[in-house]
């Protein structure tokens, strides 16, 4: 088991290097940070001095190796825009994004799975049809539109929930901040959580439904019925567990997607997370921030894949052979 985790972590190193390379190559040709940093009025001498200071006069691959080297030492460079170390900048934003992503995923899982099971068992009931039509809307509604509609409804018209920001946060440990400790912080999480989680929820529901329909036709479910087991045990014990492997895969990948690309939701709700930071950095071609961000997201995906693989082994004994 530990050998397996170790080998997977070793495999992660080249992946991260390739991602870093692509990120760096991309940003080297996108935008010009120098002209943005200097503004319109500057002399040629100032310009050359800044280019030299940022190291942009060196060949691209030298910049990349330098970037990797400093990354290895835990130093991700200094943001051009904010003149702060990128590492602490991201660390400051990471808790906001992770809390939002976890809230959205838990919502999606806790509502999507039971709905999927229900629609899988009661295929033809009225409620199932309502769920299915509703999920179609959930899948096709763009995130930004949903966010704006929710703000319009619950913040502007009803005035129940805040329309932007994270609310008051509390420091936990040296750098983590949390909004879970206060009612105002939880209230601030609700709308962005729903916005980010609705698509995942409908996806999970449809996936669980399709898998349930498949599993309920199998011989072992028929045999379980023939042994007189209760419907509850058959549906939730025997059938649901057999649908889990594909569901875990999708939830894992979706969680990576939520963390990496929550920027639309964060922009709509002015959520002080990494997505908002990325959007602001792209506008001024803040290369160190963008590169470090992509590396971090790649790392998140790798970790999630590892966790998903470990969950496979926990769920399905057939995969444990030879390990």
């Amino acid at each position, binding site marked *: 088991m530990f050998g397996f985790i170790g080998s997977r972590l070793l495999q992660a190193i080249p992946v991260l290097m390739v991602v870093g390379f692509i990120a760096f190559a991309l940003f080297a040709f996108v935008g010009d940070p120098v002209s943005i940093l200097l503004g319109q009025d500057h002399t040629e001498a100032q310009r050359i001095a800044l280019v030299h200071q940022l190291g942009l006069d060196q060949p691209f691959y030298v910049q990349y190796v330098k970037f990797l080297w400093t990354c290895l030492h835990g130093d991700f460079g200094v943001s051009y825009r904010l003149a702060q170390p990128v590492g602490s900048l991201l660390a400051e934003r990471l808790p906001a994004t992770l809390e939002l992503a976890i809230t959205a995923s838990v919502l999606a899982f806790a509502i999507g799975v039971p709905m999927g099971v229900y629609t899988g068992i009661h295929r033809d009931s009225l409620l199932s049809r309502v769920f299915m039509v509703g999920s179609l809307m959930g899948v096709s509604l763009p995130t930004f539109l949903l966010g704006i509609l929710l703000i319009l409804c619950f913040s502007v018209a009803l005035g129940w929930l805040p329309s932007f920001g994270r609310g008051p946060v509390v420091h936990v440990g040296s750098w983590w901040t949390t909004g879970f400790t206060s009612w105002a912080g939880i209230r601030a999480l609700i709308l962005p959580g729903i916005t980010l989680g609705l698509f995942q929820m409908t996806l999970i529901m449809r996936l669980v439904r399709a898998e349930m329909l498949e599993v309920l036709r*199998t011989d*072992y479910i028929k045999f379980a019925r*023939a*042994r*007189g087991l209760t419907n509850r045990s058959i549906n939730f*014990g025997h059938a649901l567990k057999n649908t889990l492997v594909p569901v875990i895969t999708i939830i894992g990948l979706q969680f990576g997607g939520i963390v990496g690309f929550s920027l639309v939701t964060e922009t709509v709700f002015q959520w002080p997370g990494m997505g908002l930071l990325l959007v602001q950095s792209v506008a001024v071609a803040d290369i160190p921030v963008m590169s470090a961000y992509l590396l971090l997201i790649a790392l998140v995906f790798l970790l999630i894949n590892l966790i998903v693989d470990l969950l496979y082994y926990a*769920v*399905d*004994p057939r995969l444990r052979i030879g390990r």
Partner: protein
Amino acid sequence: MPLLEVDNLTVEFPTRRGILKALDRVSFTIDKGEILGVVGESGAGKSLTGAAIVGLLERPGRIASGQIRLDGSRIDNLAPEPLRRIRGRRIGTIFQDPLTTLNPLYTIGRQLVETMQTHARLSDSEARRKAIGWLERVGIPAAAQRIDAYPHEFSGGQRQRVVIALALCAEPALVIADEPTTALDVSIQAQIITLLKDLTRDHGTSVMLVTHDMGVIAETADRVAVMYAGRIAEIGPVADVVRRPAHPYTDGLMASIPSLEHRVDRLRQIDGAMPRLDAMPDGCRFHPRCPRAFARCTEQQPELMAAGATQAACWLHAVS
């Protein structure tokens, strides 16, 4: 009183093109401790009869008329919950393919314990001890260790032994074995049949043994019912049905089984195929393929009538 009485059972499938009768007025009984063999071609309605008895017909199939009585009380019109309590506890079922009938994600011990605890108040340790006992009885070596193994760690024959243990562990009075050996190697088939026979004899369990292997029936069953196109063509003691078949279909079926004692150049075969459900012929359903059909067979459907030691649905035996 017989343990199981099936009385004029008719099963229908409503479809867009009309109602298909998959079983048409099927009647038979099984006594306590008796083994009834049910043979017939694929699609004759053998498995359907078993599914109807335990109330597990697949939608949209339904029992249209007739009665099923277990120990004298009707079970065909029970609500889902009482019917569920009968399944496993009063009537056990064994399926065809042991590779797919066990849930791959749970240990066989868990599946046994769950089945027993569903039907009886048992503590976990008691249930586990009984589960080990059942595994020993069905011939799983080192049962105390193997109880925590998963289905994929067993061979096909061993898995069918586990399936038998699962079907019998709540000690039902009747077992419906739906082609229990069809998916197994020939060398394993005899072992499984012997095991089933011994276990049910020890517990006084009745068996409805569905198969298309006449050899298995001849060695195991007390009586045999021959099914054709959703009806019983002939029913009677095994020895009589095998040696002196009264129905021309049974006769054809027996003649098409190769025998080592009487070598023939060419096996006799029954020409044609069983009619589809939506194209049933009038009169006797077998008459288009019957070598001895006559005018009456095309007009009137025969019911079971006495024919020597057996009963056959054939006008040849009509007392005119």
